[in-house]
């Protein structure tokens, strides 16, 4: 569990890397954005271009629009996009987690209906887990979807759903049966059509000035019964299985990468010794995290569910994303910052509180690791 086996990116992955870079170069007019956070650039035109190249849902079977590529290849595409500061948030959740969820638990009809649009980069998904009274304690969700005729009647409020005001669908964790002694029973995942079902979506302004996350209110929203993903009541197992995909990717340690780029540019070719050391320190963390994340890609490729390994990558990666700007700013102390550095720094610092919250807080991840160590 603490040994991250060696995994080498195969030759196809490196060929693909060159193609992604070529593509990014041809898009240089809109790149880079000043930060490499995966949630801040919602750009349907860009996502559609990626879809056209076969870089969304690329590990999925051909019949659903996938390309049957390996997790290593997906790893390379995602890290190249993030490092370049590309706008990836529109398709990110669908590609990373909603699609794989549907692939694993969805009905044949659901797979045929939803997956091809995702792979084309045209259909976007949000996560509907959190609620006003449900954060870390996910099993406490109160939103209900009770049987009503041929469908389900949804009532309740989802909170913090990133891009729900821009995206098409949400996978919501709801109670299909009243709460009982077994907290994990009676939960289900349902698909919500955010544009057409009648849910009210309200963007919430964040401290960085962006309007990315939302409140979604359901008042007697009726959805057809074929919107349940997997078996009714199986929601807890499904939602926890999403998390290995959610936690180990390069977006968990590259959010501050643009600060590093601007930092290196700012020190130029003749850095002071302490500046070289700062760059080396950042590199040592980054290179190690990258190897750990690639190792997890290898485990996913072998069909494993590396939940604890993913938590380790996220724990170390999120701490590093917060440490990087701190190292860089002090190493440049005394010299006037370049405009590029100032921009990247401002963006990244303002986003940084979210790094150790979204996708499971640091405290929750440490709990996952502790459980893996046999302490709980």
């Amino acid at each position: 569990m603490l040994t991250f086996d060696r995994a080498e990116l195969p030759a196809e992955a490196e060929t693909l890397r060159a193609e992604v870079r070529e593509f990014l170069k041809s898009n240089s007019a809109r790149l880079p954005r000043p930060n490499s956070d995966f949630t801040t650039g919602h750009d349907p035109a860009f996502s559609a271009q990626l879809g056209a190249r076969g870089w969304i849902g690329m590990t999925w079977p051909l019949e659903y629009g996938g390309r049957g590529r390996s997790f290593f290849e997906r790893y390379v595409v995602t890290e190249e996009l993030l490092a370049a500061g590309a706008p990836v948030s529109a398709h990110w959740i669908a590609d990373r987690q909603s699609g794989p969820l549907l692939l694993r638990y969805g009905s044949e009809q659901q797979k045929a209906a939803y997956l091809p649009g995702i792979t084309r980069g045209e259909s976007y998904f949000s996560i509907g887990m959190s609620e006003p009274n449900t954060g870390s304690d996910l099993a406490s969700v109160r939103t209900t979807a009770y049987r009503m005729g041929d469908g389900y009647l949804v009532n309740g409020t989802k909170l913090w759903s990133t891009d729900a005001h821009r995206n098409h669908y949400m996978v919501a964790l709801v109670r299909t049966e009243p709460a009982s002694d077994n907290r994990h029973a009676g939960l289900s995942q349902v698909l919500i059509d955010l544009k057409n079902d009648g849910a009210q979506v309200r963007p919430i302004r964040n401290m960085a000035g962006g309007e990315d996350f939302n409140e979604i209110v359901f008042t007697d929203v009726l959805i057809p019964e074929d919107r349940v993903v997997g078996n009714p009541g199986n929601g807890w197992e499904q939602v926890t299985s999403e998390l290995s995909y959610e936690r180990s990717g390069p977006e968990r340690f590259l959010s501050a990468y643009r600060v590093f780029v601007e930092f290196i540019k700012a020190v130029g070719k003749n850095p002071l010794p302490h500046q070289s050391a700062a760059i080396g320190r950042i590199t040592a963390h980054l290179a190690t995290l990258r190897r750990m994340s690639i190792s997890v890609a290898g485990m996913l490729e072998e069909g494993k569910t590396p939940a604890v390994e993913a938590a380790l990558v996220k724990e170390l990666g999120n701490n590093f994303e917060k440490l990087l700007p701190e190292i860089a700013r002090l190493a440049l102390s005394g010299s006037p910052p370049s405009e590029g550095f100032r921009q990247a720094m401002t963006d990244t610092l303002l986003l940084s509180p979210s790094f150790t919250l979204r996708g499971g807080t640091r405290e929750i991840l440490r709990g996952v690791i502790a459980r893996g160590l046999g302490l709980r």
Partner: protein
Amino acid sequence: MNDTTNLIAESAEKMFSDLVNKAVLDKAEEGVFADEIWRAICANGFDQLGVTGSGTGLADLFHVLVVAGKHALPLPLAEACLVNRWLGSNEVFGSIGCVEASQIVDVPWGRQASVIIGIAPEGLVRNKGKNARAGVNLAGEARDSVELDAQESVACIDDPFALLTLSRVCLMAGAMQTVLDLTLRFAQEREQFGRPISKFQVIQHQLAVIAAEFAASLKAADAAVEALGTDRFITDLAIAKARIGEAVGVVNELAHQIHGAMGYTHEHQLHHFTRRLWAWREEYGDEIYWQTRLGAIVVEQGGDGAWDYLATSR
């Protein structure tokens, strides 16, 4: 790791867990050379790891050093093997230090060595004299010095300073594993307020942090060993020494905190590992030394080229 490397590491594990214990470590700190272990090492050919014609390579040596670190082996196995590798001979016991002014310093068990090699910027020198002055590092490990004498130079295709650095990297990865294991065990056994302290969330979180730092350290060490003989070796070595050095501060602090006063006693074995970690992070370049070398390599690539360089490494 391939199968032979695994087998070699497994038999090292068996040998060291049979022979190294608290009493042996205490004796070594009192200045008694662990002769019995040294003879066992030679009898099993572990002094020949990485020596041409031995059927083993450098990677085998470094994997065994992780095991040596795990047990705090009180002998300079890396130095002994590398002397045999460079001199192509089966010396009784050789050791290595760095040339500083007119001396070779920080020679592990130099007082015991029949040959001492000094690493200088110009290359390796082989010393004749055996009148080593005894000294110790912060872990109480023998670190002796000798006057530089005959200065017979030794030809070698390796980067000696880098290989010795890698030895400390691997030793640290191993020792850190034991610090984690000891701390996990202690936390589950020690009871306060009517339950094992491992049931307190704050202790669980501290153990999670130690585990994460160890996992990163082990990955960094393994990557450096994997890069042996490639043009990325110095980069991966710098990454490893810098990353593990940083982990040591965190791991040692938390491990001692969790162990309470018991871990502060001489009687407890924890300090044999934590003190070695503190000592080894200084030897053959501390974090700043390797971060600076690494930074210089990255700066060469420029801000836009850095990613290409980083992503090309495995």
